[in-house]
């Protein structure tokens, strides 16, 4: 199972998901209104690299991270 972690203010515990393509996450979160709000403005990283497309294969040990808007300093 791949792991999904919700960073910063999303403030949710990580979950494990049984998917083989990143695009399947969209379907998985379809009815989750709370997470939808964050998906609209969050970047997505697979194994700590931010991705620009959902056309990415996901393996069982992969880590997917959602990164909401940032403000350091």
């Amino acid at each position, binding site marked *: 199972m791949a792991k999904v972690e919700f*960073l*910063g*203010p999303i403030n949710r515990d990580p979950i494990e998901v049984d998917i083989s393509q990143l695009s399947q*996450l*969209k379907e998985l*979160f*379809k009815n989750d209104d709370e997470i*939808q709000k964050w*998906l*609209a*403005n*969050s*970047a*997505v*990283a697979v194994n*700590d*690299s*931010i*991705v*620009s*497309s*959902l056309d990415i294969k996901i393996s069982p040990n992969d880590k997917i*991270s*959602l*990164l*909401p*808007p*940032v*403000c*350091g*300093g």
Partner: protein
Amino acid sequence: MLKIYNGSLPVESILNEWYGIYKNQNYGAFINFVGIVRDENGIDGLSFDIYEPILNSWFDSWQKKANEKGAYLLMAHSLGDVLNHESSYISAVLSPKRRVALELIDLFVEDFKASAPIWKYDIINSKRVYAEDRSTMLENSGILKG
């Protein structure tokens, strides 16, 4: 060099340490930027979350760019709470010539604000409130939007 500190930064000791280490390495310019938490909008301070794996790779890519110009980057940032009038962020550039350092500190700090995976919260009545209105979406955000 990138270092994360729990709580506010010991600014004087960090800058003294950096100066002590690097003054003998023949850099002609040492430019630094120190961020200080302002007392505004009724906050008691700021608080920070950091995602270190991506922060490290972001910093490493900037260090590589700096090294190609003969320069070297230094950065310190706070994790957790930093009260008003304390500091949460220091960045610095060392380079043989001032022009490279002055230009790099500007580019580096601006990209830091836009790209470093750090989340800021106002501390109001001992609670953390996400500073959403001052935050910036990372590149390629929203690809999972339904």
